[in-house]
């Protein structure tokens, strides 16, 4: 259990003081895969560096299993950091060491014997699927392979928490998925709490159970991924979920149309052509003025704006028809074209 309570952090820069984090509180259940998402400059990196105290927060506390890290001395922190390891966007492998020696690195720091470290490192390289690359140098590996070595290295000291700082941002989509799959299996097998810092919605959607949305140094929203992404309440969350813009700003439609907003709230609707069926069964032709839907865990989330040319009766029929479908909401809305 990680309890981040009211932490704040300011930086003094040439342009004045920047408040990177403002009164941030997040609690992360043990064994969870927790996403922290936000645009660049939202304070994600500062937050993750506060969790392992590479940055000391100006105020607030960070408790891991009841131990407040803010109260620990530098030397105590060093041993605590073996329990909170980290992987990075740039992998940050030691380029002059081969893979085996890279994985041995945290064990050397912890004072383990050479033979013990080597044995453990070989096991871990096997775990991440690179058992045959022990003698290769990082420069000889692809980005995905380098990140696997970094993951093996992060696991070497049997940590309780794995921090992933934009760990897949430098990778292509296929490699990203395989790395996320690896992280998920590690989380399941070893029960390590994983914290994923990212700006990519897709990463959070595919792997995280909980998410916190960070905006301008503040937590805009947090909760279960399905909940937050299907009902984004805050502006910051809506911007992330509907990056193309809100429904009010991007509309294609003719004049004289009336609008119905359809909300997909985890409907199994993806398989059935709802709008087409409505046209066939009710004779109502709807113009899709705006749509942003996503499939999360095989269910549809998002919203759609239908333009309907017709009278009150048509609009009411449409609303009624759409609402009948499970997990779909519909209502008439006024929008300015």
């Amino acid at each position: 259990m990680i309890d981040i309570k009211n932490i704040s952090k300011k930086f003094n820069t040439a342009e004045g003081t920047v408040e990177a984090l403002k009164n941030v509180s997040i609690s992360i259940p043990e064994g969870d895969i927790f996403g922290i998402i936000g645009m660049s400059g939202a304070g994600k990196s500062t937050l993750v560096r506060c969790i392992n105290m590479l940055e000391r927060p100006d105020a607030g506390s960070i408790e891991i299993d009841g131990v407040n890290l803010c109260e620990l001395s530098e030397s105590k922190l060093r041993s605590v950091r073996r329990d909170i390891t980290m992987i990075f966007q740039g992998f940050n492998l030691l380029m002059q060491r081969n893979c085996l020696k890279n994985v041995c690195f945290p064990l050397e720091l912890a004072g383990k014997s050479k033979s013990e470290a080597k044995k453990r490192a070989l096991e871990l390289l096997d775990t991440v699927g690179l058992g045959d690359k022990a003698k290769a140098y990082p420069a000889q590996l692809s980005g995905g392979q380098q990140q696997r070595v970094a993951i093996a290295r992060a696991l070497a000291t049997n940590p309780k928490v794995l921090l992933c700082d934009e760990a897949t941002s430098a990778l292509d989509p296929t490699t990203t998925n395989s790395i996320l799959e690896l992280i998920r299996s590690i989380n399941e097998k070893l029960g390590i709490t994983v914290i994923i810092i990212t700006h990519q919605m897709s990463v959070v959607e595919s792997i995280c159970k909980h998410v916190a949305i960070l905006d301008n140094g503040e937590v805009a929203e947090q909760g279960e991924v399905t909940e937050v992404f299907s009902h984004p309440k805050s502006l910051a969350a809506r911007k992330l979920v509907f990056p193309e813009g809100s429904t009010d700003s991007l509309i294609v439609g003719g004049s004289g149309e009336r609008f119905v907003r359809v909300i997909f709230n985890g409907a199994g609707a993806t398989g059935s052509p709802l709008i087409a069926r409505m046209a066939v069964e009710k004779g109502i032709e709807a113009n899709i003025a705006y749509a942003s839907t996503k499939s999360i865990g095989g269910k549809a989330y998002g919203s759609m704006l239908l333009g309907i040319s017709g009278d009150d009766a048509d609009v009411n029929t449409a609303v009624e028809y759409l609402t009948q479908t499970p997990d779909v909401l519909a209502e008439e809305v006024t929008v300015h074209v």
Partner: protein
Amino acid sequence: MFNDLFSKETLSEAWRIIEAEFPTAIWETVYVTVLATAFSILIGLPLGVLLVVGEKNGILPLPSWLLHTLNVVINLLRSVPFLILMILVFPLTRLIVGTVVGTTASIVPLVIAAFPFVARLTESSLREVSPNTVEMAQSMGASPIQIIVKVMIPESVPSLISNATIAITTILGYSAMSGIIGGGGLGKIAINYGYYRYKYLIMIAAVILLIILVQIFQSVGTRLAAKADKRIKKKSI
């Protein structure tokens, strides 16, 4: 003045001198250069490390007055011309070696002149190590000493070797200058025969040998640096 440069007598006389004096001179030059470089690295490398880690945002911040003093001393020593420095350090040389003339005595001013240079070269090598790599080590719980010994220095080895090569060739050049105060080696021969006795052929031979020595040091250094660098992609088998 070069009229009888290649006459039969000059040639045979030159050959006699070369045969008699050059083997010792080459040995003295190499001896002085290698020893002076070794001592310069011994003093300059730790100072270079301090310049990097001791910064305000470094991993082992030093009191700012100390870092400032260190910088000033290094800059001061680097700005004194070597010829003047040799004379200025006479008292120190006498204290350490017991005399101010001779081959071994010339090592002292060489080291004094070269260690600040080595410190700056080390500083620039260590700055090539990415701050992200250092952060990685910190996130794994590395102490400042562990970061220096296990990350910063090993990661910059190729660059350190290249810079050591620059240092050794520069020191070789300085060592030739120390011929003026009686330091042995090829420099002394070039000055004594070429400058004082107008035996240009000897001077040219000494200079050519110096060039060859620089070439040898440089190519060995370049090769070692390339061999040490694991970032250069080699096809994995």
